[in-house]
């Protein structure tokens, strides 16, 4: 058990690519956590996708053993935090385990929207923030300007900001020293009843469920009988340890310490993150303040491109869910796309990551419907319907009103692109809250309906700002909206997978757009194909795919019959992936393409 005064618990807050992982690696190296040979790039980002995209998804933790300039040896516990808005819930619980945070800012690029959001989370959590300017070795570095920006935008005193280059290692020792000297040690009573915060949990194929904990009071030992305060279920601790970053078992965790336990817990779902762990025999009277549970806000249906892979998809989703209980899935059946799953995600990036993991780690080809949000529909009979899927939309005559989720978005963008960004926000029904300029950059705060953002907002934002705009958001409650469901009909039959809920003013444009796209995707065939967009029974857009003009075998004599007939039979087999609409057949691939292009 380490003396409280020799413990520091900290996080690193940084924008993607501003050097968080490199800094963590350097600190691990300096503290001798790994030999050079063991050290492979960016130890913390251990998921393939995390390393590739340079972002952190699941919180990780490392205990660094650091000998400070005062000659004393300290345990510095680094809680890694996800950098992206979708995971702000994970950020806040990581921060709850710390007393301080390093605010890492790229000395040439400056403060980005995500840094800002996470910095505010840290300030809200009463953490001591130490500003760090990274990449000062680069020619484009402007430490003075960025220091000023930190003061102006975040309101943080940056006079003592640490200058460093994680890449070259310059100033990393100063960073370590600042953790010891500027961040407060944790507080806690070793003799009190056990109160440990359950920060995270995951499934390890060898250890089973692993719980990451921060001990506030009391002690956690191997063999101890513990109890989850939310469920009252008791477990026997069979391992206690820390990551250095290698997994190392230790006899106990005392107050202020961060580490892991295993306790024969069956599934991750049994570990409610934010729960308080206490001693089963001498329980604490009160749990620690928890977190608000994460709620999926973006929904999309996933279908296997090959219908034979439905069971594989179910199994893959189940396995991903073992480690990430924050996304939801339930079986769904679509007339156009077959059997699949309706899934809920914390945000757009979360959705994209799950989809990519399904494709990469499970080798599944996935078709995803356009993302949609959760609507609250007040029905005329006084009931309220929570709508996760446009295809469950009730009959319009039963609808009293519809509420849609709004967000508060912070967008940071170089001045020159501000005009187009403001225009985009206006087009998306945005309401300006605030507009500030800081040294060549503007920060626009807007309230926006989330359904306008899930459509293609982020991609449009990136393209009109040439990638320079950064964007972050938080949910901002529900508001009534003038919303309608737009259906796409092929030869008068609704294609369920293409239905969408949109603002009335945009219904016609979106419906027309989708019909036009489908027109290019539906192959011409023997009969004309009518493509329509409709609200209720009213057609708002219409396109026609004309009949094919020519499809005939030029030569067919006695020697050709067998071959030509077999060709016909082969085509018939290929039609298994076709869906019949009246007397025409539409290949599933046309719908898939229409959905993929929706991401544009």
């Amino acid at each position, binding site marked *: 058990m380490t003396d409280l005064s020799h413990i520091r618990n900290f996080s690193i807050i940084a924008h993607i690519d501003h050097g968080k992982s490199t800094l963590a690696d350097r600190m691990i190296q300096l503290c001798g956590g790994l030999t050079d040979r063991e050290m492979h790039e960016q130890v913390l980002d251990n998921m393939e996708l995390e390393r590739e995209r340079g972002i952190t998804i699941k919180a990780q933790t490392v205990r660094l053993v650091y000998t400070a300039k005062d000659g004393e040896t300290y345990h510095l516990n680094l809680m890694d935090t996800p950098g992206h808005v979708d995971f702000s819930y994970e950020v806040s619980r990581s921060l709850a385990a710390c007393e301080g945070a390093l605010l890492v800012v790229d000395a040439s690029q400056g403060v980005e929207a995500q840094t800002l959001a996470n910095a505010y989370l840290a300030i809200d959590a009463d953490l001591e923030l130490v500003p760090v300017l990274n990449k000062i070795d680069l020619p484009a570095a402007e430490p003075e300007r960025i220091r000023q920006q930190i003061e102006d935008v975040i309101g943080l005193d940056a006079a003592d900001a640490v200058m460093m280059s994680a890449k070259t290692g310059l100033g990393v020792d100063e960073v370590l020293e600042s953790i010891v000297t500027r961040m407060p040690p944790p507080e806690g009573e070793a003799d009190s009843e056990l109160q440990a915060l359950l920060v995270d949990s995951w499934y390890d194929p060898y250890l089973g469920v692993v719980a990451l904990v921060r001990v506030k009071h009391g002690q956690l030992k191997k063999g101890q009988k513990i109890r989850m305060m939310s469920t009252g279920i008791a477990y026997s601790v069979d391992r206690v340890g820390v990551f250095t970053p290698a997994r190392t078992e230790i006899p106990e965790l005392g107050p202020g310490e961060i580490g892991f336990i295993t306790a024969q817990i069956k599934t991750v779902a049994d570990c409610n993150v934010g729960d308080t762990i206490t001693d089963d025999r001498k329980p604490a009277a009160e749990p620690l303040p928890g977190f608000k549970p994460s709620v999926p806000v973006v929904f999309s249906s996933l279908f296997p491109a090959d219908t034979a892979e439905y069971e594989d998809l179910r199994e893959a989703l189940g396995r991903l869910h073992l480690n990430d209980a924050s996304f939801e899935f339930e079986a769904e059946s679509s007339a156009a796309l077959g059997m699949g799953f309706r899934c809920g995600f914390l945000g757009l990036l979360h959705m994209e990551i799950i989809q990519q993991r399904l494709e990469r780690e499970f080798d599944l080809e996935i078709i995803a419907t356009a993302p949609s949000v959760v609507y609250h529909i007040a029905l005329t009979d006084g009931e309220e319907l929570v709508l996760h899927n446009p295809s469950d939309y009730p009959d319009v005559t039963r609808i009293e009103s519809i509420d849609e989720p709004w967000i508060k978005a912070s967008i940071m963008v170089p001045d020159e692109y501000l005009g187009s960004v403001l225009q985009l926000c206006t087009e998306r029904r945005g309401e300006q809250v605030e507009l500030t300029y800081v040294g060549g950059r503007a920060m626009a705060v807007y309230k926006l309906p989330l359904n306008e953002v899930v459509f293609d907002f982020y991609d449009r934002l990136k393209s009109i700002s040439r990638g320079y705009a950064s964007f972050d958001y938080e949910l901002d409650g529900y508001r009534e909206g003038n919303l309608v469901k737009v259906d796409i009909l092929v030869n008068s039959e609704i294609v369920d997978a293409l239905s969408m809920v949109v603002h009335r003013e945009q219904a016609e444009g979106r419906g027309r757009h989708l019909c036009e796209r489908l027109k290019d995707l539906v192959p011409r065939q023997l009969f004309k194909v009518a493509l329509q967009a409709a609200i209720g029974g009213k057609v708002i857009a219409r396109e026609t795919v004309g009949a094919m003009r*020519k499809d005939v*075998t030029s030569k067919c004599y*006695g*020697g050709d019959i067998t071959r030509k007939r077999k060709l016909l039979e082969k085509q018939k087999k290929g039609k298994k992936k076709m869906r019949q609409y009246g007397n025409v057949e539409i290949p599933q691939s046309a719908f898939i393409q229409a959905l993929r292009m929706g991401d544009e």
Partner: protein
Amino acid sequence: MTENDRRMNDPGGDIALYVHWPFCLSLCPYCDFNSHVRETIDQGAWRDGLLRELEHYAARVPGRRLTSIFFGGGTPSLMPPETARAVIARARELFVPDPEIEITLEANPTSVEQSALVGFAEAGVNRLSLGVQALDDAALSALGRTHAVSEARAAIAAAADIFERFSFDLIYARPGQTPDAWMRELDGALALTRGHLSVYQLTIEAGTPFFLAQARGDLQLPDEADGATMFEQTQDALAAAGLPAYEISNHAVPGQESRHNLTYWHYRDYLGVGPGAHGRITLDGEIRATRQHRAPEVWLKRALEHGHATQDDAVLPYETLTAELIMMGLRLTEGIDAGEFTRRIGKRPGDVFAPSTIEALVDAGYLDWRDDGFAATPAGRQRLNAVVDALLNS
């Protein structure tokens, strides 16, 4: 008479004979027929092989009336007229020759082959089918043809001189060809015809050099719209010139149709002799599909050793029969006779296809449905693959 008896007794009467000569001097990049180039050919052995296989099949269908013989290839005009003479003479002995028997030879319009035409006529050939393909030297060269337009004109003149009936082939919708250019070329061709003309849209077949070129992007064919326009204009121009289409790609002055090819489209019996040749023969009330071994050397060895090189010989199931009958029959302008359909398939057309499909096809103007039969309209013939597909899946 039971249904089975009817099928047993018909169409036992008539039969056509196809003879395949698999050799060419060079291969054309669009052709996917069973064609081969060989330095030397043992002509005696090949003649014997063809005769042996002809005898083998004749023994299986004795007493039939022989209505036509067709020498196809490959380039059958490269075989010695002696070989054609022997085959024709033996066929006349083995079957009951129809007095109006049509004996066609496919020929290339090169000068070498032109000199042999008289020999073939003396051997009994009474109809010539010339592979002219284009009346444009650059186009001929792009198609891999070794003859020039001047040779083609000379060959047509010779054919007109020597044979009572002749036809020639043209290929259109070639890379870079516009509808206007094709109409001018077709106009020039009309002046050279006598009673029959075959016009084929260039089709890229898998496994040919053109297929690879197209896959690489080196071959740009006219698009669907231009292809359709050329097809429509061709139909109109030839009909106006007195050569209406009697089949998708075949045009004739009424009465001058290819009797042999009509056998295929009427889906009546024919024997296939020679490497890769296919046949359809009615035996014991069932229709059998036959196919000979494709490889020239293997075929020859087997034909000489066993009397035939049959690779496949199987009874066609009912579904296949229906598919082939309408696939072939709807190529004809006259369409399919309801009585013949019922006799061959054992059910009336109205009981085979879904009324809703027939109605949709008729409404769209693709199908002409009458009590005595059914036919694809010009618009339907232009989209025949899809029409047949719709009928078969109804």
